[in-house]
């Protein structure tokens, strides 16, 4: 297997049949994907088509005998750079698309003419240039391609390699500085949030649970406070927003009626629990309600 692969992808003087097939399969795909980058309306589609181009390029590098570069192409370009692009796309908004407003008059036509003109110039240069007979990389890749590349890098280009290292450190620091935001407001930690809650006089403990009655969907029935009044905040906020809670006023009225009938007093709105002869204000309305009759039944939600 490896000998076959080596024979097919040696990067020799002449292209083998396998390499030819690889080229004619990949080249149209690459050109189409590059046109996708040019014409895609959404930035995500452009990024995906660029990834297709880059992976196809990695195949071509390997087919041309540049095995090391093929691997680096996949790892650095598609693995690091394009992922960075996708992260930034997620930050900016995946649906971000081009504005079609032309701010410079005739810029579109000028751009088309310049692009086509560049293509024509490149075609002219490629067509008229005289190429030497291909030498092939068989001799240069003698032990293996990564070793040959390493020999060239670390003998002739050592200084450039070190400068590139400094450049990478500088770029990383530059990215940190450029995206750094100074904190304009003091940090609000757990301690500060707790102090705020105490100062604001909100509920410090969890909110009371909704009332539980056997005849109702329990979550939409408000709980009762010690005086028998419904506590609206005990019903989950989602139900309140949707308007699916049982009517608190209706409950209050019903409880008032029950309390009035049971304790036989005219005014029981603020009757403290010790004044209630039942002694159990939370359970009492439920029992009394059953006694009072069907016309007090809830709306059946």
């Amino acid at each position: 297997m490896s000998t076959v692969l080596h024979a097919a992808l040696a990067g020799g003087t002449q292209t083998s049949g396998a390499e030819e097939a690889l080229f004619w399969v990949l080249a149209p795909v690459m050109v189409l994907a590059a046109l996708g980058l040019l014409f895609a309306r959404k930035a995500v589609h452009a990024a995906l088509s660029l990834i297709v181009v880059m992976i196809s390029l990695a195949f071509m590098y390997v087919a041309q005998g540049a095995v090391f570069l093929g691997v680096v192409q996949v790892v650095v370009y598609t693995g690091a750079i394009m992922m960075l692009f996708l992260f930034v796309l997620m930050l900016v908004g995946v649906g971000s698309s081009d504005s079609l407003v032309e701010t410079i008059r005739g810029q579109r036509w000028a751009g088309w003419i310049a692009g086509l003109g560049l293509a024509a110039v490149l075609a002219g240069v490629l067509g008229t240039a005289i190429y030497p007979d291909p030498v092939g990389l068989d001799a240069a890749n003698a032990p293996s391609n990564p070793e040959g590349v390493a020999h060239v890098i670390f003998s002739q280009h050592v200084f450039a390699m070190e400068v590139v290292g400094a450049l990478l450190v500088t770029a990383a620091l530059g990215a940190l500085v450029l995206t750094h935001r100074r904190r304009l407001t003091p940090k609000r930690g757990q301690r500060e949030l707790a102090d705020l809650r105490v100062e604001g006089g909100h509920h410090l403990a969890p909110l009371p649970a909704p009332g539980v009655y056997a005849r109702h969907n329990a979550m939409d029935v408000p709980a009762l406070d010690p005086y028998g009044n419904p506590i609206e905040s005990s019903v989950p906020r989602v139900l309140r927003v949707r308007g699916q809670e049982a009517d608190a006023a209706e409950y209050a009225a019903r409880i008032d009626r029950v309390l009035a009938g049971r304790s036989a007093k005219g005014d029981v709105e603020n009757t403290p629990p010790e004044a209630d002869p039942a002694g159990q204000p939370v359970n009492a309305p439920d029992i009394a309600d059953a006694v009072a009759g069907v016309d007090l039944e809830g709306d059946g939600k």
Partner: protein
Amino acid sequence: MSLDHYLVLAGILFSIGAATVLLRRNAIIVFMGVELMLNATNLLLVTFSRLHGQLDGQVLAFFVMVVAAAEVVVGLAIIVSIYRTRRSASVDDVNLLKS
């Protein structure tokens, strides 16, 4: 098939990348056009390396990749900071210095 098929392909890719830079307005897509041009140049370098039987072209392509990585990091950081202040990634909206 001779090796100049690769050169023609690289020329086509480079032209499309240049047209992307000239025609698109989203800064991120413009940046991707620059990346496509760099990739086309790398393909050219690798092909010439094979044509001449020397590995210097591949080493040069390797350096192009590293510099492209650094360039992408800084460029995307600039795009993100512009987006934070102007809420837009369009190259036409960066016109603060216009009189």
